[in-house]
C-alpha cells in the first residue's frame, strides 16, 4: 500500500472532528494491524474502490461514539443505540470522503458505511492487504483508523513515522 494514503485519512479525520464536533484529535500511534479484532467498541467500515481497492475502519471507543453523536444531535446518550450508530457511520463517511477527495487520481468510489458494535467480532482485510492502524486521542477517549488497500506496501513504519506529513 502506498503509505502516503494514510496521511489523507489522518488529515481528513482531524478535519472532520474539528469541523463537525469542535474537538481536536491527536495522533498517537502508527502500526501495522496484525489482528482482526476491533481496536475499540464501535467500528464503522467503508469500502473504497477504483484504481485500488480497500477499506477503512474507524473504531471508536464507546464514549467517543456517545459524545460525538451527542454533539451532532444535541442530545445525551448513555447507550450505543441506532442514533449513535447512524452518527458514527456518517462521521466515518465524511472521513473516508475527505481522504478520497485527496486521492482524486485513484478515481475511488465510496461504499456505504456499516457499523458493528462490541468487541466480539473480527474484521478481515483481504489476505494480501496489510492494513495500517493509526490511533488518536480525543478529549472523550480513543479512536483508531485502520486503512488497507490492495497495493504494495512501500516503505517501513519508521520511514512512515518520519514523514513530516504524517505528524498531525
Amino acid at each position: 500500500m502506498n503509505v502516503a494514503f494514510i496521511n489523507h485519512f489522518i488529515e481528513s479525520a482531524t478535519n472532520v472532528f474539528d469541523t463537525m464536533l469542535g474537538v481536536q484529535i491527536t495522533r498517537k500511534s502508527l502500526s501495522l494491524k496484525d489482528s482482526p479484532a476491533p481496536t475499540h467498541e464501535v467500528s464503522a467500515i467503508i469500502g473504497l474502490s477504483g484504481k485500488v481497492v480497500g477499506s477503512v475502519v474507524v473504531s471508536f471507543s464507546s464514549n467517543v461514539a456517545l459524545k460525538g453523536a451527542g454533539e451532532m444531535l444535541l442530545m445525551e446518550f448513555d447507550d450505543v443505540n441506532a442514533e449513535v450508530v447512524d452518527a458514527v457511520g456518517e462521521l466515518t463517511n465524511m472521513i473516508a470522503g475527505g481522504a478520497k477527495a485527496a486521492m482524486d487520481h485513484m478515481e475511488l468510489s465510496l461504499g456505504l458505511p456499516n457499523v458493528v458494535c462490541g468487541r466480539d467480532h473480527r474484521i478481515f482485510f483481504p489476505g494480501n492487504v496489510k492494513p495500517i492502524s493509526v490511533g488518536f486521542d480525543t478529549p472523550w477517549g480513543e479512536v483508531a483508523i485502520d486503512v488497507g488497500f490492495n497495493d504494495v506496501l512501500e516503505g517501513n513504519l519508521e520511514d512512515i513515522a518520519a514523514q513530516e506529513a504524517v505528524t498531525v
Partner: protein
Amino acid sequence: MKILLVDDSGTMRAIQKRCLFKLGVAEDQVVEADNGQTGLAEFEKGNFDIVLTDWNMPVMDGLTMLKEIRSRNKDIPIIMITTESERARVVAAIEAGVSDYLVKPYTADALNAKLEKWVPASV
C-alpha cells in the same frame, strides 16, 4: 416554503432540520426521505420549493434523483450536500442541473449561509 430533505443519515437530516427551523421553516413544511427513490416519490406527491439532497445513498443515489427531478422540473432549486468533492463529481452534478453544492464536513455557519441563500427569510 416546502422543503424536501433527502439523506440516508438521520443525523445529517437532524442537523439540517435544526438549521432550517432556525431560519423560520415550520416543522410540517419539511418532508424527509432516506434515499433517492423515496425522495423522488415524495417529490412527485408534493409541491416543493427546494430540494436538499445527499449523493451517496442506498437504492437510488442523489445524482440519479437529481436527474430524475430535473427531467420533471427545470426550475426548482436543488442543493447537494455531500462528501463528494472531487472536481469530476462536482462537474457531473452541475451538468445534471444542481443549483448549489455544499461539501461535508461543514461548519454550522457554512450550512446556515448556504440555506439562507436559498430559503427566504420571510418563510
